[in-house]
C-alpha cells in the first residue's frame, strides 16, 4: 500500500484521498485568499504582489529617465507625485539617487527573486513533481507574508521625510553607514535593512520548502532524471538562495552594528562634517566581499528559474524534445557552482589585491562555457522543430536573444584589464539589464502566459500578448543597446545629469532616444497588466491541456482542488520531453503514459 504525505502534513492512504477531499475545506475568505496555505493561491499572491512592485519600480525608472533625457526641462507633474523632491518640476539630485536605488532593489529582489521564484516554484513544484502541496504549507504561507511585510516596509521607506535609501542598491558603506554623507542613509537605510532582513527570511523559508518538496514528494516514477527542467532550475535556485542569502544577512547585520552600535566592521579613518570619526580598523572592502558573495549567486537566483521556464516553453512549443536534457542540467549545476567563486569580478578596481583579481577573471570566464552550452542547446531545440508561436514561446525566444547579447558583453566585463575602463559605466548598466533584468523578466512573462491557464483556468488574450512581446523586445533593445555606446564613451552610471563634462553633451541625443523607448516599453507593460487582470475574470476558458504538454500539471482538473488531483496522484512513466516522437499517433506523449501503451513509438534504450 502506498503511503503519501499530504499537504496538511498528515499521512493518508491513497484510496482514502478522494473521500478526504470531499469532507474538508469549508473555507472562508480569510483562509482562502489571505492566509492560504495552498501553493496555488500562494503563487498567485507572490505574482500579483510582484507585478504591483514591478510597476512601482518601473514608474521610478520613468522619472529618472525623463531627467536624463531632458535635464533642463521642468516636468511639473512630478511635484504632484513626489512633492518637494520634484519642486518646480525639477527632480532633486538626492532623490534621483533614491529612485535608482529603490528601482534596483525592487527589481532585483522583489520582482525577479521573490516574484519569479515565489510564483513559479510555488505553482509548479507540487504540480510538476506530483505532490498535493508543498512539504510545509504553513512555512509556505509564512514565506509569502514575510515577503509581503518586506515589500510594505520598502514602500513605506519611500514616504519618510529624509527619503528612502539612496546609496545604490549595492549599499556600499561608508556611504550607506553615515547619515551625514547622504540623507537617504538615515531612517531610509534603516528601513531598507529591515526590509531586506524580512526578505531574506522569506527567501529562506521558501527555499527550504522547495528543496524539501522536490526531494521528498515526487510521485511514483518521477526520478530525478524525469523531472522537467523547470523543477531542476527551481531546485538549484533554492539551494543557491539557502547558501547565499544568509551571507547577505550577515553583511546587513554588521552594517546595522556599524550604523547603530558604534562598531567598526566597515569603517575606518573617516573625516566627515568637519570632524574625524572614532571608527578604526574596519574595511569597506569587507562589505563588498560579503555583499557580492550573495550578489553574484543572486544573479543566477534570478536567471536560472527564467532559463528553466524557457526550457519547458521552448520544448513544448517547438514540438520536439529539449536538446541535451542532461547537458542542460549539468550546465545549470556548473553555473551554480561557479557562481560562488566569481564574486570578485565586481571588485577588480576597488583596491582588492590584483592577484586575487586574476583568479576571479579565470573563474568568471569559465561561466561563459556552460552558458554557451545552454544557448546552443536552445538553438538546436528550435532547429527542425515545428514552432507554435504562442506569446510564451515568443518571450522564451526573446530571453535567449537577451541571454546571448548580455552574456557576450559579460566577457568584456569579466576581464579585469578591460573592466578598468568600463567598470561602473553605462556599459555595465546595459550588460546586466539585458542579461539579468530583461532575460529574467522575459522568462517570467513566458511563464505567466504559459501557466496562466493553470493558475486561473482561463487563457490570456493572445493578440495582446503578441503586441506586448513585440513592443517590449523592441523597447528593451532600444533602451539598453545604446547604453553600451554611452559606457564606451566613458559615461559613469548613477549620474544625475550627464552634462557636467563638455564632451558628454553630444550624448544627450542618445539619452533622448533611450527615454522614448523606455516610455514605449512602459506602455507595453500597461497592455500586459490590462491583459492579465482582465483575463483573470473574462479570459477565454482554458481546455484541460491547452498547449498539448507532457508534464503532469496539465492532468489536474482545470478547476482548482485542494490537493491538486481528485483521487490518486498520477504515476509517471517517462521523461517529460517526448514530443514529436516517430511512430506515435500524436506529436506528444504525456509523462503519465506507460511505455507498454506505446509499442509503436518505443525506441531501444528508451528509459528516460
Amino acid at each position, binding site marked *: 500500500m502506498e503511503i503519501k504525505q499530504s499537504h496538511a502534513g498528515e499521512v493518508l492512504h491513497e484510496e482514502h484521498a478522494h473521500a478526504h477531499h470531499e469532507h474538508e475545506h469549508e473555507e472562508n475568505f480569510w483562509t482562502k485568499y489571505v492566509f492560504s496555505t495552498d501553493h496555488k493561491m500562494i503563487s498567485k499572491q507572490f505574482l500579483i504582489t510582484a507585478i504591483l512592485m514591478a510597476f512601482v519600480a518601473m514608474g521610478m525608472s520613468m522619472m529618472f529617465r525623463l531627467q536624463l533625457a531632458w535635464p533642463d526641462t521642468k516636468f511639473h507633474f512630478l511635484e504632484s507625485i513626489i512633492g518637494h523632491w520634484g519642486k518646480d518640476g525639477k527632480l532633486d539630485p538626492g532623490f534621483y539617487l533614491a529612485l535608482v536605488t529603490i528601482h534596483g532593489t525592487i527589481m532585483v529582489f522583489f520582482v525577479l527573486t521573490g516574484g519569479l521564484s515565489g510564483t513559479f516554484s510555488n505553482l509548479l513544484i507540487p504540480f510538476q513533481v506530483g505532490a498535493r502541496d508543498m512539504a510545509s504549507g504553513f512555512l509556505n504561507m509564512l514565506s509569502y507574508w514575510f515577503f509581503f511585510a518586506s515589500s510594505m516596509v520598502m514602500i513605506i521607506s519611500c514616504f519618510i521625510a529624509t527619503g528612502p535609501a539612496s546609496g545604490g542598491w549595492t549599499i556600499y558603506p561608508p556611504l550607506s553607514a553615515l547619515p551625514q554623507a547622504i540623507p537617504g542613509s538615515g531612517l531610509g537605510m534603516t528601513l531598507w535593512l529591515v526590509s531586506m532582513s524580512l526578505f531574506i527570511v522569506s527567501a529562506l523559508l521558501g527555499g527550504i520548502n522547495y528543496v524539501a518538496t522536490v526531494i521528498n514528494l515526487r510521485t511514483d516514477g518521477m526520478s530525478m532524471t524525469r523531472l522537467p527542467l523547470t523543477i531542476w532550475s527551481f531546485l538549484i535556485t533554492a539551494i543557491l538562495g539557502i547558501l547565499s542569502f544568509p551571507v547577505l544577512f550577515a553583511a546587513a547585520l554588521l552594517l546595522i552594528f556599524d550604523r547603530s552600535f558604534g562598531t567598526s566592521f566597515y569603517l575606518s579613518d573617516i573625516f566627515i562634517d568637519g570632524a574625524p570619526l572614532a571608527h578604526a580598523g574596519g574595511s569597506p572592502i569587507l562589505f563588498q566581499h560579503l555583499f557580492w558573495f550573495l550578489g553574484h549567486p543572486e544573479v543566477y537566483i534570478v536567471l536560472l528559474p527564467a532559463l528553466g521556464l524557457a526550457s519547458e516553453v521552448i520544448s513544448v512549443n517547438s514540438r520536439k524534445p529539449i536538446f541535451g536534457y542532461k547537458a542542460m542540467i549539468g550546465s545549470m549545476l556548473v553555473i551554480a557552482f561557479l557562481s560562488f567563486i566569481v564574486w570578485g569580478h565586481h571588485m577588480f*578596481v576597488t*583596491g582588492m589585491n590584483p592577484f586575487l583579481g586574476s583568479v576571479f577573471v579565470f573563474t568568471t570566464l569559465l561561466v561563459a*562555457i556552460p552558458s554557451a552550452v545552454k544557448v546552443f542547446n536552445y*538553438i538546436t531545440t528550435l532547429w527542425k522543430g515545428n514552432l507554435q508561436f504562442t506569446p510564451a514561446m515568443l518571450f522564451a525566444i526573446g530571453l535567449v*536573444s537577451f541571454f546571448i547579447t548580455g552574456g*557576450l558583453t559579460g566577457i568584456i566585463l569579466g576581464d579585469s584589464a578591460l573592466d578598468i575602463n568600463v567598470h561602473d559605466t553605462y556599459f555595465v548598466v546595459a550588460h546586466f539589464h539585458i542579461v539579468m533584468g530583461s532575460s529574467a523578466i522575459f522568462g517570467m512573462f513566458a511563464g505567466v502566459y504559459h501557466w496562466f491557464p493553470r493558475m486561473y483556468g482561463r487563457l490570456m488574450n493572445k493578440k495582446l500578448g503578441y503586441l506586448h512581446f513585440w513592443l517590449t523586445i*523592441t523597447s528593451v533593445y532600444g533602451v539598453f543597446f545604446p547604453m553600451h555606446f554611452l559606457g564606451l564613451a566613458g559615461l559613469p552610471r548613477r549620474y544625475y*545629469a550627464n552634462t557636467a563634462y563638455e564632451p558628454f553633451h553630444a550624448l544627450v541625443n542618445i539619452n533622448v532616444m533611450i527615454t522614448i523607448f523606455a516610455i514605449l516599453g512602459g506602455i507595453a507593460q500597461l497592455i500586459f497588466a490590462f491583459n492579465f487582470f482582465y483575463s483573470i475574470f473574462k479570459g477565454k476558458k482554458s481546455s484541460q491541456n491547452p498547449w498539448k504538454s507532457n508534464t503532469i500539471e496539465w492532468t489536474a482538473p482545470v478547476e482548482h482542488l485542494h490537493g491538486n488531483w481528485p483521487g490518486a496522484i498520477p504515476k509517471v512513466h517517462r521523461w517529460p520531453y517526448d514530443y*514529436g516522437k516517430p511512430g506515435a499517433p500524436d506529436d506528444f506523449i504525456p509523462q503519465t503514459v506507460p511505455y507498454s501503451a506505446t509499442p509503436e513509438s518505443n525506441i531501444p534504450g528508451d528509459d528516460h
Partner: protein
Amino acid sequence: MNILLILAVVFGVLVLVRLANVAQLASQLSGESDEAEQDKDNKVNAWLMLGFLWFGLFLLVYMILRYRHYMLPVSASEHGVGLDKLMNVNWVILFVVFFITQIALFGFAFKYRYNKNRRGYFYHDNNKLEVIWTVIPAVVLIALVFAGLKQWNNITQVKHNDAMYVQVYGKQFDWTVRYSGKDNKLGKSSFRMITDNNPLGVDSNDRAAADDIITKELHMPVGIPIDVVINSRDVIHSFFLPHFRVQMNAVPGMNTHFYFKPTITTAKMRVITKNEKFDYVLLCNKICGVAHYNMQMKVVVDEPADFKAWLTKEKLVFEKSAAPAPAPAPQAEKNSGEEKKVVAIK
C-alpha cells in the same frame, strides 16, 4: 537626432498598425477556427521574427557607424593602447558569435514555423555536439583569459622605481592633488590632522612633507610614468580617467594605487579630437552622495618643461603664513601604514 525621432515615429506607427490588426483579428475571431487562427498568428510572428532580425542587425551596424565618433579617442596612456587592442580583438570574436547565434535563433524561428503536415524532428541528444560546443568556447575563452591577464599583470605588477609619486585625495565632492616634490616622497598624513588649512591632514613634522605641493588640477608631464596614490576621507569615490583607461577606487582607510604613463599632451589631443576646447577630466565613478555627478577635476598633460614651470607656481603644502601649527597627534595615529611602504619601495 532627427533620424532617431523618425525611428520613434515609425515604431509608433507600427504600434498602431498592430493595434488595428488586433481589432480586425478579434472581429474575425468568431468566424475562424482556433487552428486557422493560430496558423495565421504563426505566420505573422514568423515574419516578424525575420524582420526583427534584419532590422536589428541593420540598426546595430548603423549605430556603430553613427556613434563611432562619440567614443573615447585614442588612449592617452601607454598601457591603454594595449587595452584598446585587446578590446578590439574581443569585439571581433564577440561579434562573430553574436551574428551567428542571433541569426540562427531568429532564423530558425522563422524557418521552422508551424506546419501541420510536418513534425518536429525527434532529436534530443548528441554528445559529440555537446563536446564540440563545450571545447570550442573553452579554448577561445582561455585564450582571452591569458591575453587579458597579460595586460592586467602588466598594469598592476610594475616596478615603481621610475615613477613620480602623486597623491589624489577624494572627498565629498571634490578632488585634491598632492605632488611629492623634489624628494619624490609623500609626507605622512592622517585624517585626524585635517583642518581647514590642511585638508589632507599632512603631518608638518615629517620632513618628506616639506616640499609637497597641493593643487586643484591634476597636471602630468608627458612620457613620465606616474604612480598615483589614491585615498578618500569620507566615502568611497573612484578615480576615473577615461581617456587614460585608468580607474581605481578611493577608499577611506586604505591607499590604492594606479601606475601609468601619459603619452599624449592636452595640446596634441585637441588636434586629434579636432576640438580646441578639449580637456582631459578626472571623474568620480563611484556613487558618493548628492553631488556625485559633479565631482570632477581638470586634468592636463604638459611637456615636462611646462609641467615644471606650472608646478613651481603652485603652493607648497605648508606655505609660509598659511602653515598652521598642526595639533600634535599621537605618533601611532600619524601615518597610515601603506604610505610607509610607498616610501620604502623608493
